[in-house]
């Protein structure tokens, strides 16, 4: 029992820190709420999907920016998609970066876009790591026989 409650506390604290640091926002909490007995791996599935999409989209963006005449509209559409996805799961920092990225696209500034692209890539990586940690914590909790705590 001690182990379990310790683990749970850890998970809660970690989630809270994620919130604090702005990695995730309320939408992520909503996502966690959707996870219940009928769909236990929901968050994991969604997050996995998200990072797959992320990777794909970032690759697309990179390719789009590597051509001679950059089609900013296309870049913008990719960024828009990423923005949508990130806001769906509550990846706040990624979303904000996308907003800036879209402005750069609109301004058709290559430098800006390149910079934003780098930032977005970095954010994705960071979030991925953090969520993986959270994921492993939760797995441990479940293995110990408890239920995943949801931050209220």
């Amino acid at each position: 029992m001690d182990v379990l409650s310790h683990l749970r506390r850890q998970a809660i604290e970690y989630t809270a820190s994620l919130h604090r640091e702005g990695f995730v926002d309320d939408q992520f909490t909503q996502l966690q709420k959707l996870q219940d007995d009928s769909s236990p791996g929901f968050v994991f599935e969604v997050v996995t999907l998200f990072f797959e999409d992320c990777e794909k989209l970032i690759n697309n963006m990179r390719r789009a920016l590597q051509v001679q005449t950059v089609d900013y509209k296309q870049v913008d559409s990719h960024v828009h998609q990423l923005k949508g996805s990130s806001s769906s799961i509550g990846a706040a920092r990624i979303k904000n970066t996308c907003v800036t990225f879209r402005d750069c696209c609109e301004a058709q500034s290559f430098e800006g876009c390149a910079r934003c692209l780098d930032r977005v890539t970095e954010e994705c990586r960071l979030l991925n790591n953090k969520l993986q940690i959270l994921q492993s914590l939760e797995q441990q909790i479940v293995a110990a026989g408890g239920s995943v705590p949801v931050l209220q």
Partner: protein
Amino acid sequence: MQLHVGPQLALQHPAHLILCPTTSSIELASVSINSTASTYPFTWHVQSCNCIEPQWPAEELLMKYQYISDFFIALAYFSIPLELIYFVKKSAVFPYRWVLVQFGAFIVLCGATHLINLWTFSMHSRTVAIVMTVAKVLTAVVSCATALMLVHIIPDLLSVKTRELFLKNKAAELDREMGLIRTQEETGRHVRMLTHEIRSTLDRHTILRTTLVELGRTLALEECALWMPTRTGLELQLSYTLRQQNPVGYTVPIQLPVINQVFSTNRAVKISPNCPVARLRPLAGKYMPGEVVAIRVPLLHLSNFQINDWPELSTRRYALMVLMLPSDSARQWHFHELELVEVVADQVAVALSHAAILEESMRARDLLMEQNVALDLARREAETAIRARNDFLAVMNHEMRTPMHAVIALSSLLQETELTPEQRLMVETILKSSNLLATLINDVLDLSRLEDGSLQLDVGTFNLHAVFREVLNLIKPIASVKKLLVVLNLAPDLPEFAVGDEKRLMQIILNVVGNAVKFSKEGSVSITAILAKSDALRDSRTPDFFPIPSENHFYLRVQVKDSGVGINPQDIPKLFIKFAQTQTAGARNSNGSGLGLAICKRVSRMVTKGLLLHLGCDVTTVGSTHECLRVISQDHRVVFMDLYMPDGFEAAVRLHEKFTKHHERPLIVALTANTDKVMKDNCMRVGVDGVVLKPVSVDKMRSVLSDLLEHRVLFEG
């Protein structure tokens, strides 16, 4: 005196000597004889004529007149009896013949007297005098007799005269009465004829028209008019006239004093030709309008008739009939004519009421026929529906039972084989569940039989406690998965064995407990079974339940309490109505009402799908417009789409094209991060039913769904 003068006598003295015409002898008118000679040696043999001398000389005028008068009197007197005889002979009856004779004799004798009198004016002989005297005497006798007789006769004659007068009067009176009777008879005839005419038709207009025509003819009226009350009852409208074919809708207010006067009595009332109801013809200058009479005509309704009671004067409507005598005719309304009018008015009222009753009954009959037809149709439709339902149920039952039986049969077979305890437990659960399901399928039919009233209970002795334990065992697995605590409380005085339908009882309890478990996310479910006492039986929530306590029966009260979301108080009455669903979106959709969703965008698709699954909806996800249109059907109620899809708007348009009828088309909801005006306009242009701002939370999705399903439109933000 006759005087014979002898030869010896010598007249010494002068003597007047007259020659008497009657006897032609000389009469000595006067003799003066000297009587001194004493010795007359002679005897006088004077033979004088006995003629009488009249008083006065015949030549005198008076005598002449008397002579003439006497002559005429005699003439008259002789002619009177002749006349009498003549006329009496002529007359048929004369009762006094002997009077006539007597009177005749009297007259004749009077005449004779006067006639004889004619001879006495000059010297006349004694014979004449004697005849005269005889005649006079006779006359005297007869006239006295006549006078005496007349004393008797004259009163008689007078009375005859009186009787004659009396008879004359009587005759005159009878004549008058005859005249009256004749007029009355004629009036009666007219009334009968009028009545016959009026009553020979049941059409209101014909009745009124005929009345006016016949009255006009009978009474030789100049104009005859009927004023009917308007619908509001505040005015009288000129409805029918005799002479003018189409009277203009001329109205007068009903509260005029003259109208009130006429309406207050059932007699015909003479009114002034100048009052508004009588001014029907334009008055030319020289017309002296004829007398006008008005009478009320009661308009009776069905409700006015009591059994033995002619309708009283309560709230009644009258029509006004106005009759005008010809102008310049100096005719006046006679009493019998007024009577005629009154009788006719009554007859008209009766005829009108009959017509009204007939109309009413015909209308009622038509209505009944219509209703009958409609009822018949409804009955046939209901019968068809019931038959269709029964057929369907029978077929479905059969279809459902076949696989069910297969499961049951094979599970039982499996039970017979070698099994580990765990497997045995599983097989037993499978068997029990399948049996229950089979029972459920049977019971769908039962439900309709219950409604038809043909449900039979399978009564037998069973263990009541065991039923509850069984329910508990069946429900425990599900409850433990949901981490719900299930508690069973059986009252100590609850009998262990009971007589009833065990299967159905278990079914009911299982149903209720199952519901409790299904809709509680956490907490506990408690089942309490107690023996219900009579005072605790009546529940205000079930007013139709009238428990009758008795020796052989007991009432079992089962209470199931859970800690679930609860039921909306408004929905509680609907609980035991089959197939009725409550409206709270999301939580109750776990029955699978076919909410299908098609979402197009991976992560948000996944998230939205998760949201909707969490709320209990059926979700279908597609990746493109093409796939969406392929997959979509009428079962899908809402389509969620991400508008930044390459062809997001187009999908909406295509959906509109595919489902032309509004109620078949699923609702289209756009999920977007951007809800500025341009976006909204675009959305409305393509016919999107709602726009939701991303990101969507559970609560937001729940409220979105409930709004959508309620209002069929949602524009947020």
